[in-house]
Each structure stands twice: as structure tokens, then as C-alpha cells.
């Protein structure tokens, strides 16, 4: 029998990996498949976390934390609501950028939205308790099992199931005719438009689907950690997702799974066991330096990632032919 402390640790790792993967699949659908450089992806993640928190905390009471609204809804309603809110917010961002702006300007607008949304939430304390964030968020199905170890494994099951479901949805989309249209939008919006594809609508669609995945991931993270604050959805969070995705290989699920295992999860866990050197905050600062350097290295050495996306070409007969490796797109 594995000691309890280790069980806790392993369960935590699996849950964090699974919930991160949910969001990463959503982001990969937007970036890797459709070519939207969504620097604002942390916004639906953040909204999802707050939605789940507000729908489980109950009405605001006492001076401990202030928020404008609260309900006590049973599982799984908060998660569904979080996915819906994530999709809605992401759709709103999509309406600003989709089809109107060239990709790099889309990225800049989304980046600006992300930065300012964080700052507003930090300053306007009455909405969701400002920079301190919401704490004591109830966990789903907590009364279902007695021991906390059993609950850990229950959450592992939930997280892995939802991650698998997200993978399935994204996988089906990217293999369907819709996926081919999305890749066409990514590779050349002009050509896609000339062939009669509605670029704006396709971009809006993946903004909504990706946003739902982000919202769900935020909700599951918030309820697992029982807290949610602006630090949980900084622009930096989006950046680590991007680093993981391009390291693994944008545009394919295996690449994303590998990249996410390496960067947000593996890297953080590997450095967790370092002796605490220097002043508080030194290790964290150095971690960001290394992550930034890693992103540059990937762009420099292997822009297609560890597991490059397979290129599919269609013969006149309709038969698909797969090629490993593609031109260095990043």
C-alpha cells in the first residue's frame, strides 16, 4: 500500500494535469488548429473559476469576503454554468476580434483585455473580493465519501473523465470536415474565405468551444483548490499554456499532452523539491526566466514541437495521406 502522503501527492498531480489539459485542449483548438493567438485565454478560465465559486459559496455573509452574488447549487450545475460562462465571455472576445483583425492584432487586443480584466478584478473588491480572491469554495460531492484520501481519488476520476471527454470532443472536431475548414482558416484566412468559408463564424465557433473548455477547467481547479484569485488567471498562465503547447507540438492532441506534462506540470513539480535558496520569491522569478528561455529555445530549435502535427493531404480519390512533420509553423 502506498503511504497516504504519496497518494495525496500523486492524486494532486493527476488532477492538476487533467484540469490543465482540459484548458490546453481548448486553447489548442483555437491556436493550434484554427490559428487564433488567444493571449486572452486566461479570461474564460478566470470567469469559469469565479462562476463555480459564486454558485457554490452561497449568499455573501459576514466581513470575511465580499462578492456581489452567491448561490448554493448542487454538482454538476456549477461546472456546467462555468463552461457556459466561459463560452459566453470567450464569444464576447471573439466578437471583438474574429474576422475583423489580422492575427497579430487579435493577439494584442486579447492580451490587453486579459491584463485589464485582471487589474479591474483586483481593484474592484466588491465583485469577487479583489486581489485576495475567494476562499472556502466548497468541493463537489464532498459528502459522498468519508475519507479525504478517497475524495482525492474521486476527484481524480472526475478530472480524468472530463479531460477525456474534452479530448474526444476536440478530436472529433479536428478530424471532421469542420476541422479541415478550421485548418484552412489557420493556414490562410484569405484562401479559406475565397473558398466560401465564413472565417469570422469559424473563429467565433472555436472561441466559444475553447472558452467552454477554459471555463470548465477554471471551475474544476477552483473547486479542487477551494480558492480562486486573480493570480490563478494571469496573462502568465496563458503564456505557460502556450509554451507547453508549442513545446509539445501545436495542432495535435498528443503533442499538447506531452507539452503540458512537461511545462506547467513537470517543470513546476521538478523545481518544487529544490532546496529553498535565497530570499522568498527568488526561485519563482528564476522559474519564469527558465520558462521564457525555454519558449525561445523551442521557437529557435524546434518550432513544430516534440510531436509535430501530421499533415494530411487528400488525393483526388478522396483518400487521405498522412505526412509526419510540416513546415516550421509556430
Amino acid at each position, binding site marked *: 500500500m502506498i503511504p497516504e502522503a504519496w497518494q495525496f501527492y500523486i492524486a494532486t498531480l493527476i488532477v492538476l494535469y487533467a484540469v490543465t489539459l482540459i484548458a490546453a485542449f481548448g486553447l489548442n483548438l483555437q491556436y493550434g488548429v484554427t490559428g487564433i493567438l488567444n493571449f486572452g485565454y486566461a479570461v474564460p478560465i478566470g470567469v469559469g473559476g469565479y462562476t463555480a465559486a459564486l454558485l457554490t459559496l452561497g449568499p455573501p455573509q459576514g466581513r470575511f469576503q465580499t462578492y456581489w452574488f452567491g448561490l448554493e447549487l448542487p454538482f454538476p450545475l456549477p461546472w456546467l454554468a462555468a463552461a457556459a460562462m466561459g463560452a459566453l465571455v470567450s464569444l464576447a472576445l471573439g466578437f471583438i476580434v474574429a474576422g475583423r483583425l489580422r492575427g497579430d492584432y487579435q493577439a494584442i487586443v486579447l492580451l490587453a483585455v486579459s*491584463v485589464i480584466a485582471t487589474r479591474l478584478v483586483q481593484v474592484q473588491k466588491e465583485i469577487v473580493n479583489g486581489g485576495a480572491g475567494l476562499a472556502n469554495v466548497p468541493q463537489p460531492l464532498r459528502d459522498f465519501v468519508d475519507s479525504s484520501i478517497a475524495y482525492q481519488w474521486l476527484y481524480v476520476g472526475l478530472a480524468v473523465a472530463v479531460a477525456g471527454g474534452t479530448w474526444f470532443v476536440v478530436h472529433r472536431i479536428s478530424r471532421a470536415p469542420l476541422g479541415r475548414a478550421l485548418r484552412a482558416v489557420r493556414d490562410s484566412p484569405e484562401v479559406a474565405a475565397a473558398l466560401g468559408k465564413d472565417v469570422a463564424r469559424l473563429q467565433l465557433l472555436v472561441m466559444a468551444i475553447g472558452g467552454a473548455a477554459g471555463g470548465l477547467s477554471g471551475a474544476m481547479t477552483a473547486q479542487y483548490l477551494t480558492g480562486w484569485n486573480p493570480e490563478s488567471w494571469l496573462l502568465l498562465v496563458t503564456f505557460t499554456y502556450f509554451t507547453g503547447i508549442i513545446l509539445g507540438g501545436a495542432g495535435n492532441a498528443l503533442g499538447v499532452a506531452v507539452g503540458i506534462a512537461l511545462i506547467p506540470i513537470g517543470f513546476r513539480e521538478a523545481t518544487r523539491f529544490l532546496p529553498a535558496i535565497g530570499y522568498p520569491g527568488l526561485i519563482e522569478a528564476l522559474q519564469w526566466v527558465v520558462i521564457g528561455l525555454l519558449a525561445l529555445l523551442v521557437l*529557435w530549435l524546434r518550432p513544430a514541437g516534440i510531436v509535430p502535427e501530421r499533415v494530411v493531404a487528400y488525393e483526388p480519390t478522396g483518400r487521405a495521406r498522412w505526412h509526419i512533420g510540416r513546415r516550421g509553423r509556430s
Partner: protein
Amino acid sequence: MLEILIASIGFGLITVSILSLASVGFTLQFSVTGVLNLAFADVMTLAGFTAWLLNDSLGLSIWATIPFAGIVAGLISVVLNRAILQPLLRRGTSVFGMLIATLALSLVLWNGLLAIVRPGFFFYDMPPVTVYRFLGQILTSNQLIFMGLAALALLSVHLILRRSKLGKAMRAVAANPDLARASGIPSRLVVDTAWFISGFLGGIAGVALFASLPAFDTSTARGLLVVILATVVLGGVGHVYGALAAAVVIGLSSEMVAALAAPQWRDVLALLILIGVLMIRPQGIVRDVSGGREVAAA
């Protein structure tokens, strides 16, 4: 109410001088290399901390540190461009890849500095001030000197761009790099000079920004990035004079908003301007028929 608004013009002018330096620098980098440099604010920070180092440990007057800070920022910009951004571009890195690269650089510079100076708040040892009151404005002598320095720096840029061969070469590289090279313009040298100048401007902006606040930390200048982006877009990306005009508009209006509502609405205003301009008039306020089309999607 009216008094607050009038008094905010003075603060607005301080913001205008910082913002115009930074936005002209940012837009100049884009015009000669096509790179939207998200690490620009962090180069400003490095310059501001160079000035802090000279000011705090060597006891140099803040005015004497400005040229050093400018040169350091200029050199860092040239090195970043030459050693990292240009090679990446030559390797065929896409526009998205370049944005991720500059964001990564920004993280490296910011956290590298943070690891060295440690988290905390810093301030300059500023010379004693005389307070001037005129036309409903309250400004200190230091603030007036910074405005004068900004005006001087921008005037120099104007003269370089319009009156010198170098400026002509820069405009040629901006308009068509291949044609410029084919015409015998040493485009690498021209690009280096342009990045040095823009880094220099950013450096002065960094010192001016930090000096305008009671205290600063390693992320202070990063907070200005969205406002810089909004200014550059309003001015028409790559247009130096547009950026200048946009800095006046955004600097003054944002201080008025901050005075009337709360400081955080300044950033919201910048965001709204950014979005509004891109949706309605993507070429910015410059009168340029061709410029805007590149911003819009197909």
C-alpha cells in the same frame, strides 16, 4: 469639478511626455523591422533600474543618470534585436511566433531583474523641488524638466528622421527593406540605429515614469504596456508622428478620466480606445490610404 479637470491637464502633460517617448520608440521598432515588441516595457524597466543603481549607490544626480539609462536601454534593444529577434525572423518564425518570442523575452528580462534586485519598492533620490502654480496647474520643477527633456528628445528624433541621411535611410527601410538594401542602404546598420534610438527613448521614458511616482517596482512599467499599445495603434502602427499625436490624446484624456473616476479606469479607457480604433479605423489617426488594410483581416 472643473478645477479638478483643469488640474488634471498638468498631470496629463507628464503622462503625455512619458507616453510619447515610449510610443515613438515602440512604433519606430515596428516600422523598421515589423516586430511588435512586447518586451519594450521591460527594457524601460531595465533603464529605470540602471538610473536607480547610479542614483542610489553612486550618488549621481538623477539628471546625470538619464544619458546612461538611455544608452543602456538602447544597447539592450540592439542586442535583443540582433541576437534573438532577427535570427528568429530569418529562421522563418511566423508573426505569432515572434509575438510569443517577445513575450518570452519580456518574462526573462523582468524576472531576471527581479531575481537580482529582489521584490520590493524603490525610489529615486530626487533633487528638491520648487512648486509652480499657474493657470490652475500645480507642477514641480522636476516635472517641468522631464517634460522639457522629453520635448528635446522627440525634437531630436524629428530632426534625425526628416533632416538627416540616416533618417531618410530609416524611412526607406521602413517602406521597403528589400528595395532599400538593393539601393545600397546598409539596412542592418540602419535597423541597429533605429533600435538604439527607440531603446534610448524607452529608457528616458522609463526613468521619467519612475521619477513621476513616489515609488516603483519591477512591474511598474509593465503596467504601462497596454496604454503604449493603445497609443501606438491609435497613431497608426509604425507611424512616428501618429504615435506622437496619439500620446497627446491618450495622455490628456486618461488623466482626466483618472481624476474624475478612479485610476483603474485609465487602463479601461486605453483598452476601449485600442478596440475602438481597430474596429472603426484600423489605420489610426494618420491619413494613409494603404496603411489600415494590413491590420484588418482578409
